[in-house]
């Protein structure tokens, strides 16, 4: 199937890494096949649309009559009726077959695929690599199959990479998966495609496709942040990587959660009427038990990071907060 489609492709469809009128760039091994099926249906549709619309317009002009004209003679033609039942039937069967084979190709990951775990949470993505490194953007090597094993912590999300022509819902309480093999290096947008609430339209990330060899360098660098960086730098990187910035600002503007500007040592009024001074323990407990002490005026929407951030990470984040004056 792949070779057949491939040879037809090179003749029929402008394929490649540039965006076309209809499509974003083709940046995965399966993109060309999806686009081929799309264009197959597209040209069938163009043919029938032109044929039926022009026939309709022609009939309306050609057979327009005065009210005084008598009724037209009835007509029936069984052969014609059978034709326009059978021909669309055959075309539909062809489209079904091409759609099916394309689907099986895009849904059968090779055994040697590199596995990345994905977690969706309102409204950020987090990607965990086999060595435990976590990032908020997806980093992958080019020309290597990658399998994403995905789950959600709250509601249903959907991980959609248009340049790879792939999409899969990310469902709480179970794992779903999608796979791809990138063919182009560069950065491509990741969208959340399943409505998930207030900032659904900002649950964007990107996939960074590294040239061969560069990916392992990136991974070892990303994994050792506490060795490479000062605690302040590491703290800043952590809050960006873990999607905290989706709801907390550093410039004083309130969002889904309170701003961190001047947070250190600030007195906060809590939803239950009591008040608290922001110190090491309040920050720690707000990250691990976010619903315990909610600042007045904000909703109980933050997920817990218990088990996801280590003590050393919290210390770095506290050091970073101290610099946000």
């Amino acid at each position, binding site marked *: 199937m792949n070779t057949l489609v491939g040879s037809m492709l090179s003749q029929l469809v402008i394929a490649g890494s540039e965006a076309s009128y209809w499509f974003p760039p083709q940046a995965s091994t399966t993109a060309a096949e999806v686009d081929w099926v799309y264009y197959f249906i597209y040209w069938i549709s163009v043919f029938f649309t032109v044929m039926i619309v022009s026939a309709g317009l022609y009939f309306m002009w050609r057979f327009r009559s005065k009210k005084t004209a008598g009724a*037209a003679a009835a007509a029936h033609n069984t052969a014609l009726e059978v034709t326009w039942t059978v021909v669309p039937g055959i075309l539909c069967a062809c489209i079904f077959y091409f759609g099916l084979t394309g689907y099986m190709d895009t849904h059968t990951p090779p055994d040697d695929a590199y596995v990345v775990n994905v977690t969706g949470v309102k409204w950020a993505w987090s990607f965990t690599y086999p060595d435990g490194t976590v990032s908020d953007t997806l980093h992958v090597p080019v020309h290597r199959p990658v399998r994403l094993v995905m789950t959600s912590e709250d509601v*249903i999300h959907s991980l959609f990479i248009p340049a790879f022509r792939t999409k899969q819902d990310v469902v709480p309480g179970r794992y779903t998966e999608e796979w791809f093999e990138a063919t182009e290096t560069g950065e491509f947008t990741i969208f959340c495609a399943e409505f998930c609430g207030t900032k659904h339209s900002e649950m964007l990330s990107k996939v960074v496709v590294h040239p061969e060899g560069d990916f392992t360098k990136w991974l070892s660098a990303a994994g050792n942040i506490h060795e490479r960086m000062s605690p302040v730098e590491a703290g800043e990187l952590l809050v960006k990587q873990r999607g905290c910035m989706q709801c907390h600002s550093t410039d004083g503007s309130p969002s889904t959660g309170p701003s961190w500007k001047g947070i250190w040592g600030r007195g906060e009024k809590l939803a239950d009427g009591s008040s608290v001074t922001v110190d090491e323990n309040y920050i720690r407990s707000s990250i691990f038990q976010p619903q315990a002490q909610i600042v007045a005026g904000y909703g109980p929407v933050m997920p817990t990071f218990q088990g996801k951030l280590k003590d050393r990470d919290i210390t770095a984040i506290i050091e970073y907060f101290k610099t946000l004056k």
Partner: protein
Amino acid sequence: MSSLDTTLGHGAPAHAEDNYLTHSHGWKSWLLTLDHKRIGVMYLCSTIASLFLGGFFALALRTELLTPGPTIAMIDHDMYNRMFTLHGAIMVFLFIIPAIPAGLGNFFVPVMLGAKDVAFPKLNLASYHLWIFGAVFFVTAMVHGGIDTGWTFYTPYSVTTPANGVIWATMGVFILGFSSIFTGLNFIVTIHKLRPEGMTWFRMPLFLWALYSTSVIQVLATPVLAITVLLLTVERTLHVGIFDPALGGDPVLFQHFFWFYSHPAVYIMILPGFGIISEIVSVHSRKHIFGYRFIAFSSLAIALLGFLVWGHHLFTSGQSQLASVIFSAISFAIAIPSAIKVFNWLATMYKSSLQLTTPMWYAFGFIVLFLIGGLTGLFLAALAVDIHLHDTYFVVAHFHYVMVGGTLLALFGGLYHWWPKMFGRMYNEFWGKVGAVLVTLGFNVTFFPQFVMGTRGMPRRYYSYLPEFQPLHVASTIGAYLLGFGILLAFVNLGVALFRGRKAPTNPWGGATLEWQCASPPPHDNFSVTPVAHDPYDFAHLKYDEKIDGYTSRRS
């Protein structure tokens, strides 16, 4: 037939003053009426009011989408999410589903059968009262905490969202569901039991075949929706784990339940439209409908196959691959009966005595929009392609072509076709055609760019978007204003006809179905003597009479 013949030959019946509109007076005579015609008119007014409310939200959404970030100060993320939810829910549950069956259907099913009323007039009134009651719940949801789940109420979002309107809205859906079931039940019994002498199943007008198929879906599918929203309410209020994984439930189960109703509901929306177009194309072409049995059976085939394709809404949900393959195959099967209808309408126009009236223009607009809507359905039924297009603007464009292109244009076509019968007044043909062109054009400018956006990867239900999509969004918004203006113009033209229109003859188009033997507007009892039905698409006996600007029958 002799007593009937006196009214047939002359435009006005003997007692022109006594019709269903003037038969009794006062608001009680409307709100408590058992007359199917008055209930139909009330349904039309109510559903059209809903159309304007839903349309207002649509224009607000399109205006907000003029720029990639915030555009209107008042509309923030949450407000946008509430507005697209209300737009969808109001349009689907309060307008599209009831407008044609409960509005035009209520008025014309008994008249086309030569009957005095539907089989259960009181159930019919109860259905309308339930509609009002359900609509009140929707309005309550709007003011009581809002609702931001999308019209699909997907779990676990709908179970966990702080927006408090969810329970009100789902209860509204529950009540509206019963309204829909009552109407469907009534039509099934009416069509089975009240057909006149001579009207065998295959001499039934195709509008009745379409409504019969619709009613079967309403009666069989709607209870599933009722149970689903009830389970959702139980989970949200009593925290019984059904759909929310945090309580041990399964969120994808909700999608199966929801689409088990809501996919057949798509055919509740489009089948009555098919029926209207079959009537218009045949009557205004003054030629027997081509392939009567194929059209009738394709309605039934769509109604039955419609129950077996719900899984194509779940291709990316994580349902089993085998299930996706089977649902894809059945979805292609349902394309064929739809194609048959389009070809039959074209063949009816071929070598006809075609009248270029406003209903004919709407019928042609319907064929164009439904054709594009149907063909783009092929992209979405093809598994490999759907994975890319799912939950993008391509889907938004596709279902608007089918549901709005289908229902709205068919409704307008039907209103213009039957307005002279319903209210006894002719409308202005010139402005009618201008409206039809504006609606069709505005619709295409609004939604065609969305196919491009979706293919390029623009996901749906986005408050903000990447700047590269802005030109297409601006085009779409301009189209939306044009469409809104066209709709307004079409209704204003109908409204003006009520007061300034020329008196309508009994049979202005030369239709052969029984409603054209009834006076315009029909008397309270429709027919004093039950008429005898002949072939509903045999126009040979109808001749144009210049004196009354209508057609008279030479049959006696």
